[in-house]
Each structure stands twice: as C-alpha cells, then as structure tokens.
C-alpha cells in the first residue's frame, strides 16, 4: 500500500515538474533563447536565493522546535557527561552563529548583486587585510575549542585501575552482549577465546585455572552502583563491535584480539531518570506513538506493542552483521544497597560451569 502511494506521489511530482518546465519554456517562447541566463532569469533566481535562505532558517527552527530536546545535550547520566555536554553546547552555539551569518551573506549577496545588462562588476581581486582577518579569527576560535576539547578528552580517557574503579568486562559476540564482574577481588580472571568450552558452559573463554577467575560473575544485564567509578574492559570474540552507551556519553569499540577500555561514573539512577520531567514527557510521547502503531497491528491480527519504560541501554554501534540492529543490553543504575543485593544473587563463575 505504501509502495503504491509512493509511486502515485512520484508520478504526481513528475507531472508537476513537467508542467513547471512547460511554463518556463512558454514564458521564454518569444525570446531569442540562447540557454544563457538573461536579466529575467537573474531576477527570478536572485529572489529565489532569498526564499532559499528563508527555507534554511525555517528548517533550522523547525528542527530545533520539533526534535531539539536533544537528549544528547541534556540529561547526561555520568560525571564526565556534563562536561561533554557543555563543550557540545558551546560548539553548537558557535556553529549556529557562524552558519546563520555566512548563509545570510552568501544568499543575500547572491540576491543583491544579481546580474543586470550593462552593469559592471567591481574589479576586486585581493585584500591582504581582510584575508588576514578571516584567517586569524577562525585560528583563535579553534585554538580555544581545541584546548577545551583536549582537556575534556584527557580527563575522560585518563581512568586507570589506581582510581579503584569497579572493573567490569563487556563481552561482545554476534549478536549479543555479556558482562563479567570481577568479583570480590575486583580483578578479572584471564580469558581467551581459545579457552571457550561450550560443553562446560564456559562461553567467555575464562581461564578456569586462574584464581582471579573463580569469583568472576557473568551476567546478561549490567547493574551499576550510582556514584561509583566503573571501568569497562571490552572484548569481542568474532568481529568488531562498539559498546555505545549514549546516556553516559560513552563509547568504545570491542576489538577481537585486544582489550579496550572506557571508564565513567554514573550519577543518576534508573529510577531517578524515569522521574525527570523530560523523561516523563518523552516516554509519554513514545507510548502515544506505540499505542497508535498498535492499532494497526491489532487490525492485522498481531500482538500490540508493549508499553515503553525507560532504561539505560548498551547498543552495538559498529556494523557487525545481519542482526547488528538488534544487539543491545540493559544497563541499570541503582543505589549501592540495591546493587549489593543483586550481585549477591548472581552465580560465581566457578559455580556456573557444567561438571563433566
């Protein structure tokens, strides 16, 4: 049905274009049409330049109003996330300032100086001073941005084991995630894909003889205590994946054959995040859409969609194969007590193995 509608729309558009051209051609019928722009073309296109400028501004405003709640520029749920957001807001403001001015100059000049027969353009080939100005201003601005950015970057990346983080391994495979907690010793046991033994349910290839591995805990959900620095160690068993946690402003690729890492401190629990006014609005809006979509599904005799409840997510953000689009894991940020209670319930690695 959609396809049919699409085709019909396309046909209409084609006809419309054809008509437009006919009108243009008829309007020119009396002229000696050399296919080179004449004064009339210059006038029309000059005005269209201003219309187009308006279009650029309008689409900018519409985008901001409609989709500009920018979940990635507010509501950061991690400590460094706030700094990233600040940098983002500064960069964005700068960009929109420059964009607004330069697009105006470009299109306004195009309109203002539209050609007329007999007028002569200004022979103006060079001005060292002007060029110096627009070399030096971007240089200074960018120097500021670079320095700010580099400080932020170094802060984010400089997480090490010395800061006593909670160490968790993120393990990627086509097409799901596992997490491995380091247990009471907070040290992950050695692991290699060559040690994978499906029959013994050693699915991450953890070294069974490593004393550090005995108290490791493998889970299919990530639970994080709020306010505690966590250091993720990423591994992949097959192809490249990328552990993307947008709400925490965190991302790192998982590379077969090496261990990568990313650390951050979550600052907002899942429960708190669900209660923020922005999130309540967002979830309500999504559920409105889902109810709407469910109607169509029910008509087709299918199950309606389940209502949506907010959760932090870990997404795969590096193309990894057929089901790349559905490779996710839930992240739950909770209080220390809730976390302790949850981790106590999980099976230790040494107890999770199937004995032959």
């Amino acid at each position, binding site marked *: 049905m959609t396809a049919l509608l699409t085709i019909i729309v396309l046909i209409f558009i084609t006809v419309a274009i054809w008509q437009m*051209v006919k009108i243009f051609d008829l309007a020119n019928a009396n002229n000696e049409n050399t296919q*080179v*722009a004449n004064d009339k073309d210059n006038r029309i296109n000059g005005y269209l330049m201003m219309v187009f400028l308006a279009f650029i501004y309008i689409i900018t405003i519409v985008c901001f109003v409609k989709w500009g709640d920018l979940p990635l520029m507010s509501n950061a749920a991690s400590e460094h996330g706030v700094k990233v957001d600040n940098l983002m807001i500064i960069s964005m403001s700068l960009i929109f300032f420059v964009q607004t001015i330069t697009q105006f100059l470009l299109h306004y000049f*195009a309109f203002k100086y539209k*050609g007329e027969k007999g007028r002569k353009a200004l022979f103006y080939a060079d001005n060292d001073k002007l060029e110096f100005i627009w070399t030096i201003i971007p240089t200074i601005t960018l120097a500021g941005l670079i320095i700010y950015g580099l400080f932020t970057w170094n802060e984010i990346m400089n997480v090490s084991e010395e800061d006593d983080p909670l160490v968790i391994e993120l393990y990627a495979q086509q097409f799901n995630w596992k997490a491995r907690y380091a247990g009471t010793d907070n040290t992950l046991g050695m692991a290699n894909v060559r040690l994978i033994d499906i029959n013994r349910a050693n699915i991450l290839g953890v070294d069974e003889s490593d004393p550090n591995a005995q108290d490791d805990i493998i889970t299919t959900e990530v639970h994080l205590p709020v306010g505690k620095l966590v250091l993720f160690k990423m591994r992949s068993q097959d192809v490249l994946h990328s552990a993307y946690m947008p709400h925490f402003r965190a991302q790192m690729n998982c590379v077969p054959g090496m261990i990568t890492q990313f650390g951050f401190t979550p600052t907002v629990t899942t429960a708190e995040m669900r209660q923020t006014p922005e999130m309540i609005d967002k979830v309500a809006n999504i559920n409105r859409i889902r109810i709407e979509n469910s109607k169509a599904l029910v008509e087709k005799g299918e199950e309606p969609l389940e209502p949506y409840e907010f959760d932090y997510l870990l997404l795969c953000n590096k193309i990894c194969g057929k089901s790349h689009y559905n490779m996710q894991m839930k992240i739950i940020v909770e209080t220390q007590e809730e976390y302790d209670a949850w981790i106590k319930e999980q099976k230790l690695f040494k107890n999770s193995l199937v004995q032959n």
Partner: protein
Amino acid sequence: MSEHADTHAHDDCGHHHKETFVTKYIFSQDHKMIAKQYLITGTIMGVIGVIMSLMIRMQIAWPEEPNVIFEALLGKWAPDGVMDADIYLALVTIHGTIMVFFVLTAGLSGTFSNLLIPLQIGARDMASGLLNMISYWMFFLSSVVMIISLFVEAGPASAGWTIYPPLSALPLAQAGSGMGMTLWLVSMAIFIASSLLASLNYIVTIINLRTKGMSMTRLPLTIWAFLVTAIIGVVSFPVLLSAALLLIMDRSFGTSFFLSDIFIQGEVLHYQGGSPVLFEHLFWFLGHPEVYIVILPAMGIVSEVIATNSRKPIFGYRAMIAAILAIAFLSTIVWGHHMFVSGMNPFLGSVFTFTTLLIAIPSAIKAFNWITTIWKGNIQFNPAMLFSIGLVSTFISGGLTGIILGDSALDINVHDTYFVVAHFHLVMGISALYGMFAGIYHWYPKMFKRMLNKNLGYVHFWITAICAYGVFFPMHFIGMAGLPRRYYTNSNFPLFDDLSDVNVIITIFALIGGVAQLVFLWNFFYSIFYGKKTVQNPWKSTTLEWTAPIKHIHGNWEGEIPHVHRWAYDYSKPGHDEDFVPQNVPLKEGEEELQH
C-alpha cells in the same frame, strides 16, 4: 599564405590520421572523448547508487513493510517485498562504494581532469594518450566487476564501505563476505590501478605541457585543484591497495595481518597476532584524503564558475592556492579522527583532534573568499552558478559540524550515529555532487557542442537544493538523539520510536530529490542530440578552452596553440570594453598584469 602554413603545421603534428568508429568512440586516446566516457560511465553508476540510497531510505522510513519496489528490484532478497536484513547492509555498502569511488572520484575527477587539463593549460592532449585510454578502460572494468558482484548467489559485499575486518574477512561472519567481498576487492584493486595511472598522467601533463606563458600562477584554480587532487591520490591510494591485498591474503591464504583470537560459529579460527586496528589505519590513510580527492576538484570547478558568472576575478587567488595546498597536506595527517573510539591510544586521539580542527582554517578561507567573490559582482544565474552557490552553502553547513566530529571528546557520543551520516553527506556528498553538476552545466557546450536547457536546469537545481537540506538537516538531530547508523530497522529500540516521523519526512524529501534527478538525466541525454547549438564562448569566459573551436579536433587547436599573457581571472577589468579579457589576449600598452 598564413592559413596554408597553419594547416601544414597541423598536419605535421600527425593529427589527421583516419579514424574508425572504434578508435573514435571506443578505444579513443583523445582526452575529450575519454572525458565523455568517464562522465557517462559515472552517470550510470550514479543512477545505480542513487536508486540504492532511495531503497535504503524507504526501508528506514517504513521498515518491514512490503514494498513492490523492493520486490521488483531485489527479487529473492526481498521475499514478498520485505527487504532482508543482509541485503540492507549490502545496499549501504555498495551505495557508499559506488558514490565515493565510482561517481565522485572517477566520474568527477576523471571527467573534468581529462576534459580541462589539456584545454585549459593549452596542450594538444594528455602526456600519454595511451595511458589515459588504459586508465579509462580499467575504470570501466572495475565498474563491471562491481556490478557483477551484485548478482552473486550469497549477495554482494555488506561490511560497510569501510570493509573493516574481521567482518569483511570471514564468510562465517556474514553472507556477503564470501564471493561478494572477493569481487569488491578485485574491483577496487583495478580501480586503484586505474586511478593511479590517471593521476600520474594528470600530474605530468600539468607540469610539462603548459603552453607558452602559462606559468603556475596563471593557471585557473580548476587546474590547481586537479593537480593537488592527483598528488593526494598518488600518495594515498597505494596504501588502500596494500590494505586490500593484505586483506585478500588474510581471506584466502591464511595470513593474520588483521585477525587474531576469533571464535565464530562454534569454532576457534587459527588467526593469531593481527589487528583490525591496523586495517583501520591503512584504510583511513586513504579514506580521509579520499574526501578531499572528492571535494577539491568540485571546489576548483566552483571557483572557476563563480568567478565567471560573477564577472569578477576570484578573490584571493593566491590564498585559494595556499588553502588547497594546506588542505592537501593536512588531509594526510588527520585520518585518526575516524578512529577516536577504535581502541587507539588516547594520546594519538589528542594529536588527531589538533590536526583535524586545523583543517577548518583553510576551509574557512575558501568559503569567505567565495563569498567575497560574489560581493559586488554582476551575477549571471546560469544553472552552473546556482549549483556553485549551492556548494558553498552545503559546504558551510556540512563543514561546520566537522568541528564537533573532529573533537575527540564530542565524537565519543556522535561517532557512527546519523550525525556523521548527515555531516559527510552534506560536506562531501552533496557538495561534490553540486560541483559535478556545476561542471556539467558549465562545460556541457565544450563536451557536446550543444547547450543544456537552462529552465530544466533551474528546476533541477531548486528541487535538489530544497531536498538536500530537507534530507540532511533533520538527520543531524536524529544523530544527536543517539540513533546509530546502519540499523536495518529501529523497531527493536522503543527509545527511538519518537524519531520515526523524522525518518519518514527525510525519506519523502529523498524520494522527491531522487525523482528530480530524472529532469537532469532527460536534459542531459536529450540535449546531446537536440540541444540548442552553442556559440564558441557561451559564458564569456577567459580561460583557454573557450578559444578552441567548437568542433572537436585532435590536438584541440587548429594551427598554433594560443600563448598566454595574463592570469585566468581578468573579469570586469577597468580599461577594457568587454567585461572579460581572455588569457590569450596580450596586455595593452601600459596595462599592468595583476600579480595576485
């Protein structure tokens, strides 16, 4: 008498040999014919690439819904009109490959370098016509192999146009990594060879075959852009070739350059000690300069078209050259900004942030210089001029967001989201396409001796311009909402449900924009046969190609090649009656040549 001497001189050059259909239209060594061959091959590849992009958009907007277009075009890969997830990735991959390499590298550079280098520097032909012909036919061959790969049983390459291993190396990881990927690699290897032959030819021709008086600082900016593009190509394409060859070895001969510690489908593979990150380095060592290989020729074309149609000299000629050179140099030391979150050492990330943001400076110079060129001009809105202004506009819009992506701290969060897709489509995709359109509208009379219909050109531009912004402007916002690219459907993430209406709007703009290209195609092919006949210098331009006769002859000029007496931008120069002074007109008594 003198006329006779001219003809004689011409005969001496040996340009009057008999031509057969084959030597004239197929295995031609004439640069003008080769340019047309590149253009038409590029256009056909472009049509395929654009159709793929429209299918991608329809899938994103209406996921899992039966679509008769899918059923018709994809056959067994869209049972009952529902697109398969594997083929979605294949479409994404091949769309990217075709557009970047086959359309915007070969189609753009190949066409206009070939057409303009000899004509604008005053040469009879390329330094080596034979090499030129071989380079085109290798490009043709690589296109054919790429098209054949679409019909492979298990599907074409589908690891993304960046073909990161291990996904691209292991048929176990993905159906498309079998024969499809092999053909992709073979096609690209041939393509790279073709591109290297062509680039070397361009460089040699520009350095050696300039006519009398054509000093480097009198060259039109198009030629500067083509020269620098060719140099970047020669420097960086071989690295991609080596990456492709090493990948072929990993795939077929059991080496471990890029692979290590892999467990897939229940078995451990023997690979040990390689690193996918190495591949990323090699790939992006070409991959990033490639962006400039694509955009620099477009910028050169646009500089030329803006000056001609503003009837003003290009503002800051030397600064423009300096900016091209600076961009070219910087382009080879910024590749790591594609790899901030690859697991590369964070210190390297800092270095690449620094070099990357520096590129904004020469880019800003270029944008400001174009705007100043328009200022107080007498702008002739020919379709080529519209597309040139369009390029400046999209280059600014798309380029500015590069400040965010080049900043490692910010890239963490928008890396591989639709924000990136929007950024590079605007700044190199649409911009380069506009440059290509500007070139086609501007030099069509030179290529085909006839004019394109200008009204169709206006319709083509305005619909395209509106749709380009309509597609890619909102796309930044879904990127900033965290939506990853290359997802077959977003329906598994209720989190993104509120973005589905944006995706529908984007797709509608894309479909309208796609259909608008039919206007161009019709205009293009119709005008080859029935377009209005052109005069020798329709745009009243100063450069040498317009001093050559309309009729294509071997050797370009009857008789002697014109000598050059001034730079390429004497538009509206005081003291002249006409508002342009061609480069071959000697300076008047007491007239000063502008030394800028």
